[in-house]
């Protein structure tokens, strides 16, 4: 393992950075309950489409404050949704503030958040949406949903792909024929159209947990086919190797050979493929939620934060900071792509 | 005496990150007009690097650190890119190991031959047909794609391409290694027939010393980027211990254990064969020059070089 990290680092510093960036990003989104100044559902009714809050070090008299502060804002023009800072009172940014109790990952309770300001002022690093909810907090919470869906989807479809590909390649014959025809037929559908059609199989109004599971199911159903085909090809060649023949002559059972001697040899490929395919799942979830077919309000996901901007030029014009959700997706995607590319080179036995 | 190819003090290194790793050292030899010079060495000894340096086709990671390569008296290391292209294929041509991999799969044999032909006053088609006949192929083969013909035929096409401009020297880099025994025989016969008819010098690279002994006028033995011996197989026996091992005369297992290999930093400057030499002595732990016995042959070994001189 240490050897692996060293090789990754030697191969590409950038990819090594990407790896740690992603690790930190995942941790941050899973700790959204501590890091987010507001709960994803908390609304500032009087501050819809509030631009990102300005953070000050100097007050109106020009005095320097070592602790940064914000001003409360009031609506200046309700039609154009412009806000004016009320400079009469400063609200310093406080760290480890107390607030209503939240549960971290359903288990641990916390009353302390990383930072916040006293009410009625608000700290909106990335502005607010139509209900006056803090986009920064929603992005952190949304990251939890978007990133966990992609991981769950990847794991399920890879398990499915490994099993099917392994069985088809190892046993061959009629099983192989049937499974591979099935895979070919699944691959004939453009994934976006298949995704929407599969979504149409279920009612539009589902509970949020049902929708979550449904998205995972749909994404893994679409994703497993391509992998199964490649694993099958690899198993076909591995099963002719001497050590597999030796295992057979020792009288090991087929399943044992397949699971302990053949499939592990496809891991270096699958880990690369896994990394490269995560972006597809993130985009899939975002696309569904963006179109209103995925994660439903009030729950945030990177897709549905963007959804209010679609077909609504006014919202887009007034609150361009909503597009930051797209930027988050982009940042995660580019890191996955960089890492995946480096892994392909590092894990390729040819380059050892 | 007329040299077609003369190499003086050539040294080539490979760039690896910031280091330069020597690949060829102190290469000094020549090929006479119309001669068949064989270069013999194990894989990794630098034979192909030498061939590519002569063609000036070394990969970007290789650098010529010193020396001259004189082709018909002209140092090709100094000419510009434009002129080297007019030299390649015309004055010097090359045949490669695995003919299938060296023919572009998307173009017919005819296109390859057309391309190989440098400016000529003769009728092009007639010249191509004549050359194909010389290598024992029908003119119809021009319409065929490389994957449709056998390995032997592919190699004949490569030879036709090398021959078509009537070059003064042809480099043959293990031209028979990828072929079966029978085809090897045929290709060797073809090469000697061509040499009789057109008198090009041939620089024949192989790992097979026996083959080299049967065809070569002179043989150069290469070890770890050094030429360790040059001899005439029909006149004298090779004397270098490494040549002996290649010929199977000396038991490889026998080593002079009295002199252990120390891991000193200057080991690179010692006799290149020191580590594996059955006859090594203390005095071999230094830089050994190539000693010419006469104008044609020589050896890189203190013991046998001295003996000869005395």
């Amino acid at each position, binding site marked *: 393992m240490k050897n692996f990290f060293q090789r990754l680092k030697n191969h590409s510093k950038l990819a090594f950075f990407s790896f740690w960036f992603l690790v930190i990003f995942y941790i941050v989104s899973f700790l959204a309950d501590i890091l987010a100044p507001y709960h994803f559902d908390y609304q500032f009714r009087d501050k819809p489409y509030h631009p990102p809050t300005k953070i000050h070090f100097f007050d109106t008299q020009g005095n320097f404050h070592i602790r940064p502060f914000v001003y409360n804002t009031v609506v200046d023009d309700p039609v154009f949704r412009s806000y004016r800072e009320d400079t009469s009172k400063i609200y310093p940014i406080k760290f480890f503030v107390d607030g209503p109790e939240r549960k971290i990952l359903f288990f641990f309770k916390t009353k302390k958040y990383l930072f916040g300001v006293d009410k009625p002022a608000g700290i909106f690093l990335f502005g607010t949406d139509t209900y006056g909810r803090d986009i920064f907090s929603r992005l952190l919470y949304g990251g939890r949903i978007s990133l966990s869906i992609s991981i769950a989807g990847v794991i399920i479809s890879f398990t499915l792909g490994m099993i099917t590909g392994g069985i088809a390649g190892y046993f061959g014959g009629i099983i192989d024929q049937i499974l591979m025809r099935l895979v070919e037929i699944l691959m004939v559908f453009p994934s976006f159209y298949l995704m929407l059609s599969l979504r149409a199989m279920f009612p539009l109004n589902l509970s949020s947990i049902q929708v979550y599971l449904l998205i995972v199911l749909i994404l893994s159903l679409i994703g497993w086919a391509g992998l199964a085909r490649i694993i099958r090809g690899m198993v076909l060649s591995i099963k002719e190797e001497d050590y597999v023949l030796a295992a057979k002559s020792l009288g090991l059972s087929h399943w044992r050979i397949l699971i302990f001697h053949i499939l592990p040899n496809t891991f270096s490929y699958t880990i690369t493929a896994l990394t490269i395919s995560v972006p597809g799942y993130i985009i899939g979830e975002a*696309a569904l939620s963006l179109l209103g077919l995925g994660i439903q309000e009030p729950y945030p996901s990177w897709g549905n934060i963007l959804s209010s901007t679609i077909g609504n030029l006014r919202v887009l014009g007034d609150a361009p900071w909503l597009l930051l959700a797209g930027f988050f997706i982009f940042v995660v995607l580019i890191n996955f792509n960089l890492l995946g590319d480096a892994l392909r080179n590092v894990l390729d036995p040819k380059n050892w | 005496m007329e040299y077609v190819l003369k190499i003086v003090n050539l040294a080539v290194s490979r760039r690896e990150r910031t280091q330069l790793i020597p690949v060829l050292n102190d290469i000094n030899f020549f090929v006479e007009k119309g001669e068949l010079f064989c270069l013999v060495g194990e894989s990794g000894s630098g034979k192909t690097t030498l061939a590519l340096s002569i063609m000036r086709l070394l990969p970007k990671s290789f650098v010529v650190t010193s020396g001259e390569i004189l082709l018909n008296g002209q140092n090709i290391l100094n000419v510009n890119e434009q002129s080297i292209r007019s030299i390649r294929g015309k004055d010097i041509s*090359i045949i490669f190991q695995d003919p299938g991999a060296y023919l572009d799969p998307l173009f017919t044999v005819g296109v390859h031959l057309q391309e190989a032909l440098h400016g000529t006053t003769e009728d092009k088609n007639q010249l191509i047909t004549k050359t194909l006949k010389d290598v024992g192929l029908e003119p119809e083969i021009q319409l065929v794609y490389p994957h449709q013909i056998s390995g032997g035929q592919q190699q004949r096409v490569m030879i036709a391409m090398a021959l078509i401009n009537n070059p003064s020297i042809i480099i043959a880099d293990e031209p028979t290694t990828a072929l079966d025994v029978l085809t090897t025989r045929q290709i060797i016969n073809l090469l000697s027939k061509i040499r009789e008819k057109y008198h090009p010098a041939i620089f024949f690279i192989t790992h097979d010393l026996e083959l080299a002994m049967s065809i070569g006028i002179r043989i150069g033995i290469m070890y770890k980027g050094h030429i360790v011996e040059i001899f005439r197989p029909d006149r004298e026996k090779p004397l270098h211990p490494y040549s002996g091992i290649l010929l199977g005369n000396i038991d490889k297992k026998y080593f002079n254990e009295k002199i252990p290999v120390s891991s000193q930093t200057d080991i690179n400057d010692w006799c290149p064969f020191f580590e594996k030499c059955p006859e090594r002595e203390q005095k071999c732990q230094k830089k050994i020059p190539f000693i010419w016995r006469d104008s044609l042959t020589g050896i890189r070994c203190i013991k046998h070089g001295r003996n000869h001189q005395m």
Partner: protein
Amino acid sequence: MKKLILKRLLHLIPMLIGMSFVSFIIIQSSPGDYFAQMKMNPEISPETIQQMRTSFGLDKPVIVQYFYWLKNLVRFDFGVSFAYHIPVRTLIKFRLKNTLCLAIFSLFLSWLIAIPLAVLAGYKENSFTDRFLSMLAYISISLPSFFVALLFVYFISKTAVLPLGGTRSIFDINAGTFVIFADYMKHLLVPGIVLCFVNTGWIFRLMRNNFVETFNNPYILAAWARGLPARSVIFKHTLRNAMNPMFTILGMEIGTILNGAALTEIICGWPGMGSLILEAVLSHDLYLVMGSLVISSFLLIIGNLIGDILIAFFDPRIRIT
């Protein structure tokens, strides 16, 4: 060559049957009895219902219904849209034209940009140009199409340099063909550029890697050894060989670009297949969903077929065996 195409065409038949069967299953497993729902809908005339009942065998067992449906499918009859009350075929015909125009326009544009840049980068492997272009490609690959589309829409809404949404803004009946065409192209520009933006990175990367790999091939070394000029080695030998796998990619892209196109269409307001299937899913218009799914997969199959034919045409190793 003819034999090869015929073989590929025969191979299509089980694929098409499988595809249609899966589509049918998906729609059949959707909740609700649509036939009953249709009868309740006062906007649908009893004649239409009667006609659909007989042509689709809606009161027969499910498996029989499939064959009815398949029979109609062969005639490109997908039934009637519940929401629009017009045949699905008519709807798809109009939308398909737009989607194909968009896909082909952006494919053409992105290949036109990506291939020359890829050759440049591949030829100057590891140079600054190569690294810079590869970095741009990474960015292009990692940008989701919907995000680029939104950024573009934002930009256009601020500057209004190009029309947004729909396919035309000139409704004068007397307008000349050229004027209408120019108007159409102007509307195509925004979704087209967005899609091209996302696609170019992929094509660049594939082509650049192909080029580098081909450039290190023995037959390129042999081409240099023949004394060929750089122009001939690069464009005749390396480019031709590096382009070969790209023909398969081109075929595949005709299908896969539908995915990117769908979201782009929806966000840019381009009336194509993508927005059609979304509307159909949102209004639970099942025959329309099914029709869109079948047609889009049909396009993907045709795309793969075109790729196979192209590569057979350009690669003698496949054409002549």
